[in-house]
């Protein structure tokens, strides 16, 4: 099984690696690049924990091979906070609204909502619940994450 060269940018930084075609983007990020903020829950596209942005659109990195991301831009949870660790608006809203407990699903939720709040400045609770239907959480019962998303949208509108 031949190896393939994969060149891509992750959170604005360029990387190049030689990998087997069967390596998923999730495993590539975690094992090749050491970016373990992207979590793997189910590895068959159901739980949403591994959600990243691929050219700005949310995607399940367990259902995408690294070779398919060749030449593309990937954004992961590591790229959200400022370099000094200051949380961004969405992350701070999660912290303030009890949007997480164990935190395992949080990276996926944050990346899903990063795309969603970029494209929807004034979402309803229904809209938020609909988009978060692709991210499973076993702790919060979704009340906290939904409140956090609506709070983040409000803060983003106020800052705009």
């Amino acid at each position, binding site marked *: *099984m*031949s190896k*393939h060269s994969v060149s891509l940018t992750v959170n604005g930084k360029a990387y190049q690696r030689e990998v*087997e*075609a*069967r390596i*998923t983007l999730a*495993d590539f990020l975690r094992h090749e690049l050491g970016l373990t903020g992207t979590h793997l829950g189910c*590895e*068959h*596209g159901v739980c*949403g924990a591994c*959600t990243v942005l*691929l050219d700005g*659109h*949310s*995607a*399940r990195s*367990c*259902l*995408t*091979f690294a*070779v*398919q991301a060749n030449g593309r831009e990937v954004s992961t949870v590591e790229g959200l906070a400022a370099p000094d660790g200051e949380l961004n608006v969405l992350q701070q809203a999660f912290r303030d609204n009890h949007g997480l407990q164990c935190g395992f699903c949080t990276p996926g939720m944050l990346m*899903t909502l990063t*795309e*969603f709040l970029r494209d929807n400045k004034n979402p309803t609770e229904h809209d938020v*619940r*609909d*988009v978060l*239907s*692709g991210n499973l959480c076993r702790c919060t019962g979704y009340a906290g994450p939904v409140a956090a998303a609506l709070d983040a949208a409000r803060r983003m509108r106020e800052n705009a």
Partner: protein
Amino acid sequence: MKPAPFDYHAPRNLEEATGLLASLENVKVLAGGQSLVAMMNFRYVIADHLVDIGGVAALSGIGVADGALRIGAMTRQRDLEFSAEVKRHCPVLHEALQHVGHRQTRNRGTIGGSLAHADPAAELPVLCLLHDAEIEIASRRGTRRMPMREFAVGFMTTALEPDELVTAISLKLWPAGHGYGFQEFARRRGDFALAGAAALLEVAPDQSVRRAAVALFGVAASPVRLDAAENGLRGKRLDMAAIATAAAEARSIEPLEDIHAGADYRRHLAQVLTRRALVDAAQRAGVTIETKQT
């Protein structure tokens, strides 16, 4: 849960893609990968070769011509969901797309991939059946067109030969002002439907039915057109009694049985969802329906 090793091919055009499919053994086409990669992770699918058609630009696009909506096989479900042309010319497709997986899977998943995968509970195949779609197919031997009724041959099985791939789908458009309805029942938002129904109605000024199309999914090995319901509605004045009679035809199906639902329950769902889809279609065609019975 990791896929078995395979060789990866990324053709840049259709000719290269069909050449690879003709020359390789145990090969699968990779489009959006939202079903295929999950099955590979489980090792339900072990392929020696993957031909990734994501780089074949000619396979993507949405266009309206000659009374048909033509969609390239590699067109992402997201692009269909946000397409103004789809919403204007084929509103039932726009509505159905809200039920296809989740935002993250629609961003990657394609219409051609959904058709070739042929899950009985998938929304896009039933929409193609409802709109009398023609499937455009290519191989190194040439191209052919096939009606959706012949394309879906059984449980997760299509009429595609191993060296063929879907290149485009043409849905026959209905006149402006037609009514449409799409109903499905799933345990959770985005789950595969236990049953679903889609309906189109063209209504004359005297509120009689000029033409009807009714199709079910999630209930049998592949999507089903309810010809008896369509024929029964034609020429009838649209009211709740006519709709209920048509919906009763849904009970004639031979449903799947699995851990999620037995045959009787699916038959019941099929009837109720058909009735609701027809009520929506009638109302959107401008007919007032007394709905207290639903």
